[in-house]
């Protein structure tokens, strides 16, 4: 029952938080670049505007254009249900197993790639192809960093991993954990199409990954695609936040603890959003064919983390 309450709270919180996070990221960037910016509520206004439009669809597009956005949103919402964001009380039969979480995330990745192909244009195919290539190459880093996190806790269940780090904070600053966290962060940047892998602020054809896939979508199709991607970013930043700074997360159910959990995860996500935004100012997008090198580097970090935790610890 407690697990259900936490899941509901997480979903509702992140549905409200995700657009705000995007607004914060854009506003911070605008402020630092010396622009006025549009304020942190603009993503909300965008979604409202898109939902009240008649979507335009091509004659050749199939049901995938309708189902793909739903699949993406559902996969992102499932992430919000399964990840220990506000609290670490998991469902008994579907614990927050990291391998399952990655697979749920992949449903969204596949849905987005198929939407990109469904438009039947060169741009959509290009975005889809690049997106899947990056997703394929990021997979080893992702799973190996999960492996590294699972070793101190003895399980790949995320709520147990977070609790272990809460109980023995020395794990967090151990070199193994730092390596794994860096590797995981690079993987998440790639998965959520942020700099330096993709440039979220551009519509320039040679640099696009994510944007190219959603060019043909409009109205509510586009709105759900955007919301799904934002939710994914917010949930994964929440995961990084709870792995790096586990304090504040709810472990024993209480109303006060729930409130603390909600506030702390909100603060963590927004602070990480600001850090991300500031960091992105200093980064340029790397060439598409240098992305594998970056990912190979993060893979090396993750591999080092796993073997070190066996051979050193």
């Amino acid at each position, binding site marked *: 029952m407690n697990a259900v309450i936490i*899941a509901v709270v997480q979903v509702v919180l992140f549905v409200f938080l995700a657009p705000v996070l995007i607004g914060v990221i854009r506003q911070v960037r605008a402020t630092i670049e010396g622009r006025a910016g549009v304020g942190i509520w603009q993503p909300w206004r965008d979604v409202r505007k898109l*939902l*009240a439009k*008649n*979507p*335009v*669809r*091509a*004659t*050749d597009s*199939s049901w995938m254009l309708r189902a793909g956005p*739903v699949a993406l949103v559902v996969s992102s*919402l*499932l992430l919000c249900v399964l990840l220990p964001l506000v609290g670490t009380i998991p*469902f008994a*039969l*579907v614990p927050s*197993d990291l*391998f*399952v979480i990655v*697979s*749920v995330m992949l449903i969204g*990745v*596949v849905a987005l*790639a*198929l939407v990109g*192909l469904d*438009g*039947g*244009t*060169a*741009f959509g*195919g*290009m975005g889809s*192809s*690049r997106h*899947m*290539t990056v*997703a*394929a*190459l990021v*997979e*080893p880093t992702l*799973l*190996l960093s*999960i*492996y590294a996190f699972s070793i101190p806790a*003895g*399980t*790949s269940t995320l709520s147990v991993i977070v609790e272990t780090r809460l109980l023995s904070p020395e794990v967090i600053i151990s070199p193994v954990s730092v390596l794994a966290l860096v590797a995981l962060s690079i993987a998440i940047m790639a998965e959520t199409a942020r700099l330096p892998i993709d440039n979220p602020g551009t519509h320039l054809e040679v640099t696009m990954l994510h944007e190219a896939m959603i*060019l*043909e979508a409009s*109205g*509510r199709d586009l709105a*759900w695609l955007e919301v799904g991607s934002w939710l994914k970013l917010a949930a994964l930043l929440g995961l990084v936040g709870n792995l790096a700074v586990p304090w504040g997360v709810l472990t024993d159910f209480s109303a006060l603890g729930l409130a603390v959990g909600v506030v702390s995860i909100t603060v963590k996500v927004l602070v990480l959003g600001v850090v991300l935004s500031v960091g992105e100012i200093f980064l340029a997008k790397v060439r*598409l*064919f240098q992305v594998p090198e970056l990912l190979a580097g993060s*893979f090396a970090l993750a591999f080092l983390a*796993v073997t070190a935790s*066996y051979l050193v610890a």
Partner: protein
Amino acid sequence: MSGIGAGLLLQLGLGALAVLTALTAAPSLRSRAVGILCTLIAVIGFLTGLGAMLGATGGLRISIALPIDPLLLAPDRLGGLFMLIVSSVGILVSLYSMSSTHGPDASRTAWVAMPVFLVGMQLVPAATDSVSFLLALEIMTLGSTVLLLADHASRATVASAGIWYSAMSQLSFFFILAGFAVLAAASGGTSFTNLQEIEPVPANVAFVLLLLGFGGKAELVPLHVWVPRVLPEAPSHVSAAMSGAMVKIGVYGGLLVSVRLLPDGPAWWGIAIMVVGGASALYGILQASVSSDLKVLLAYSTTENMGLVFLALGASMLLRGYDAQAAADAALVAALLLAVSHAAFKSTLFLGAGAIIHATGERNLDRLGGLGARMPVTAAAFGIASLGAAAIPITSGFVAEWMLLQSLIHGGRLDGAVVSVAASVAMPLAVAVIALTAGLALLTFVKAYGIAFLARPRSTEAAEAHEVPPLMQLSLVLGALFVLALGLLPGPIAALVAQTVSSNPSAAVQSVGLGGVSLPGIGAVLDPLMLVVLSVLVAIPVIVSIIVSALRYPHRTVELPWGGGGSRARPRMQYTATSYAEPLVRVFDDVLKPSRDVQVTHVAESRYLVERVRVEQRVSDVFETRLYRPVLNLFQRYGIVVRHIANGSIHRYLSYSFVALLIVLIVVSL
């Protein structure tokens, strides 16, 4: 006579009847009549296998005049499981072939070979001595070779595929024969039950020989070279049976060796199998991901899947050697689940490819597109099977891969202590290999499904496609349902499968919740049905809001919403399978060694204007060009030399026999 024995005898009888029917039936009736008999054979095999898997004993004993142990067909639980796998694929394929075969595929020869192939595949896992095992293996190979050659008159590539297949399958057969011979010499009998206590040296020799032999049957690198030639050239229902069922015989052989015949091998056996499996998985999926030919793609992906099965098997052997029993058991069950799920999704995928060929005559993805609207049932079945192949939840492939990953991450440690340096390097590497394989498989099947079924048709054949006949649809739907059922109810299935290899199955795998699976030894739980319930719950508000919004703001349909600028965007300008994989070809340039040919034709007046650009890209199999070609060239040169000795003159041959006779007489008299 026991039920198992009766089932086997019935299969043999039905097989003979089917062969007779194929020989005598009128061409118009042949496909239906023999197809129904083949379905019956597979159903009987299914029941027999189920019985054997649940623990029924008994079998068929065939006494022979030779001074060796009698032939005994008495499947144990593991054999029963593989009979079940093979016959389930057999049912799908037989149903499908009744309406898919026409022309040379439906010839008398092809229909005679079909029951022979099916019965041969059933008998291999039933055999409990090496002679009947080898006999059944050859019956199976014979049947499949004839089926492969069905189309040889119309396409030259079929004949070349036939030669490759015969050569490679006989090479595998030679290795298996040699391996069993070593075992028989060491143990003094051909029956599998005698083969327990073997000295290390013959055990090592036999292990290497049998690994090579069964590795060849299971399409592992570097013995996989027949796969990308044979599976695409065979009629699609035969490719489905070969990839879905026949390849599993190689897996069965691997399990037979490592679980039953030589269970307590040294650590390097496990590592050797892991290396071969990992290399096959990576190489197979890499080739599949850059392939534009749908059936070549599926063929290479078979190599990948079998590689994963052997990786799991090797990990289980390695971990058992270090007494990490729980993880070892989980890895072994994962290997079996991978094999079961591969049988389901790969036969569906090949049957789906057959449906596409039936409807369009094309298997080149670059000329397909938009088939989803034209062939909805095929699209749905192919889509579900693709999800299975890409290991996406709630399909069978996902559960199997999840279990393998769980066993690997828990394998490095036992009660908090590191088990060995080898394991703590092997496990992360194996996880990395599986991860990259899974990522590339995702790309491969997004490409296969997205390019073939979504977007706009890239050729008139694709634009004029129509749905296939009902019987073909039925077997596609059945296959897709298998994939979903295995993925939604993994608990009971895994528990059943665990019984076939583990002495204490409930310690390895248990069923929890609504068909969920739990690994008590390593404390991991997964319930796909709960996952479905959760996703339905979060999907309801989204879908309700979409319906509300669709009623208020209906969509508009236009020719091209944006299309990169409008009218220029003809279907030819879409991304094709080749362009989809282009970034990957560049990234893995060193491994794939693609050859690219770009011809630019300029306009006569100016070199700055281009009239036509022609790009051709070929990715060849590195193993074929670097390993097999040199050997084949050597043979060819030898053949040219030998041609002078054997020039066709009867006098010369008679004198050779005379000289040979003389030499024999001299040797005997010495």
